[in-house]
């Protein structure tokens, strides 16, 4: 009996937990819809960020390569989708062509950046990726002349939603007697994608490649001495992270129906990185928690601060928008101050930290 339990796969052992999570996941869009579709969109963004954060987790958490320009790949994916499925060029390719294409192009950009720069050490790599992110953003902003490719700062509008045959994700429709709004449909699509990326992350973690990444993260010279082709393995991490960014970008484009360079600022890269670090680098549940918190907190503050100020002072004395970001920043400082390894670090990492403190 005992043996059987041990042999069972994790989801068989924890079937109750899995069922519970599934129930919550299904319930979320309907509960959120009670507060208005805006909340469903926030839930969607939370999942999109989970997706992005897990993609970045491969690069930063597993391989230990500090990437401050991750948003560049997200942007590439978003613009690939926007250009190939909007009236801007008059192209309307279906999503199942564009999403993989976006991932491939983002991956190519990742290799293009990674190949010459991955020999750089930690902080130098960080600043190079940061620069790359800025270069991409500046190009997106200015490539409207002499040939109008990206439509500059105005961005691209009227992007096609994801559509399967006649089934469009932008409209409300009734499925099995349940009425689903556009954002709710995207929610389920995003959940499916997120589960996919979680599975990839889980499977990679203890694979040969995953172990190679961790070896490189801990000590590159030793990893090399053990026969790991550090260059290729690092490049693989980079390319894989970039592809996930590309897919996320495509979905973002379709969901919003609009992209502009403004969505791909350095702040965005930093926010995604903060999700990874704040949650617990290299630990999948931690990263998910980080992504949800950092997406939800500003929104909760957005809706909470004004009434709160009114209640205390009778009027808004401080601009709620800036107060919101101020609290957000403070929260980041405090969390790191009291939980330097992140909110939910892996047990291994916690042990390592405890050891190094001795």
């Amino acid at each position, binding site marked *: 009996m005992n043996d059987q339990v041990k042999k069972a796969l994790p989801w068989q052992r924890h079937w109750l937990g899995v069922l519970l999570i599934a129930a919550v996941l299904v319930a979320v869009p309907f509960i959120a819809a009670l507060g208005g579709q805006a909340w469903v969109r926030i839930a969607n963004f939370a999942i999109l960020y989970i997706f992005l954060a897990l993609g970045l987790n491969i690069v*930063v958490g597993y391989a230990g390569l*500090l990437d401050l320009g991750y948003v560049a790949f997200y942007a590439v994916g978003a613009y690939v989708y926007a250009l190939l499925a909007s009236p801007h060029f008059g192209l309307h390719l279906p999503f199942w062509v564009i999403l993989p294409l976006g991932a491939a192009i983002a991956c190519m950009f990742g290799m293009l950046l990674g190949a*010459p*720069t991955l*020999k*750089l*050490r*930690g*902080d*130098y790599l*960080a*600043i*190079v990726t*940061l*620069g*790359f992110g*800025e*270069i991409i953003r*500046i*190009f997106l*902003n*200015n490539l409207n*002349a*002499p040939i109008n490719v990206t439509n500059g700062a105005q961005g691209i509008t009227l992007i096609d939603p994801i559509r399967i045959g006649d089934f469009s994700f932008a409209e409300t429709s009734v499925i099995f007697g349940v009425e689903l709004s556009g954002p709710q449909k995207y929610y389920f699509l995003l959940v499916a994608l997120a589960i996919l990326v979680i599975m990839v992350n889980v499977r990679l973690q203890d694979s040969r490649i995953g172990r190679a990444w961790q070896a490189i993260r801990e000590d*590159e*010279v030793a990893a090399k001495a053990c026969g790991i082709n550090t260059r290729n393995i690092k490049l693989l991490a980079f390319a894989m992270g970039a592809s996930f960014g590309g897919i996320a970008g495509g979905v973002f484009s379709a969901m919003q129906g609009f992209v502009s360079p403004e969505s791909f600022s*350095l702040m965005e890269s*930093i926010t995604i*990185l*903060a999700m990874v*670090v*704040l949650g617990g*680098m290299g630990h999948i549940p931690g990263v998910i928690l980080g992504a949800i918190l950092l997406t939800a907190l500003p929104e909760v503050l957005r809706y909470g601060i004004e009434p709160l100020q009114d209640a205390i002072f009778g009027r808004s004395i*401080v*601009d709620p928008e*800036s*107060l919101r*970001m*101020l609290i*957000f*920043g*403070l*929260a*980041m*400082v405090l969390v*790191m*101050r009291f939980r*330097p*390894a992140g909110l939910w670090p892996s047990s291994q990492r916690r042990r390592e*930290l405890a050891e*190094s*403190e001795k």
Partner: protein
Amino acid sequence: MDTLLQQLINGLTLGAVYALVALGYTMVYGIIGLINFAHGEVVMIGTMVAFTVIVSLAGSGMPPLLILGIGLLVSVVVCMVLGWALERVAYRPLRGAPRLTPLITAIGMSMVLQNVAMIIWGRNYITFPPMIEKHIYTVGGATFTNVQMAIVSLAALVMLGLIYLVHRTRIGMAMRATAQNPQVAMLMGVDINRVIAMAFIIGSALGAVAGCMVGSYYEIAHYQMGFMLGLKAFTAAVLGGIGNLAGAMAGGLLLGVIEALGAGYIGQLTGDFLGSHYQDIFAFIVLIVVLMFRPSGLFGEREGDRA
């Protein structure tokens, strides 16, 4: 030809500012290996404080140069306190934590500073009152102003002061020792905490000076100005080899000149395909190219991989 000279002059002015800010990054990095992401924000606060002081004294009938001097002094002092506080609150408690942790607190602090600035000074551009009467000089077809001259010479003066401090004083020696090996320095009786705090304080003071320069050069200020400035300055520091003081100075000047030349000539070079709004990408392209061939920056020591 006159464009070349003109762009060189503009580039040097800008480069002097970058160099001062870059020094702040590089001093902290050299000693504790931390990217102080909030440094750009310190510079911004410096500009804003100087602005407030200058505006409030503008009607007092004091000579403009004195007002400017007081503004500079107050902003330097405020930034020094800010730098010290930053280190105490956001970095010191995290010494020994994983490498990325202080990066996140730095980002958090810069958000806090930005938004505090926005609450105090508003979200609109602020016009800096011109305190120095502008004179324009023309040399060989290129023009420059006395403001530019003042910026470059003040920057040179401050940098000489810093070199003196680091190489000729006790605290400078303690700083160099800590940068080389904190543990051994501690055993030799160096108060590490004091040295690190000093690095932040001095770096912030340099940042405040740079902030006042930016304010009087462009004559505008904005609560988000620290971001791009900090980014460029950090790029300059890396370009010169981060942790290396002379490298930061050279990197700053070089970056300023490259940017100015790039903005001036990009149209010609690419047959008007790319215009001068691509100015900002030069910094990053040069950075990537330099690091590809010299992974530790132009003047950084070649560091072998640690075994």
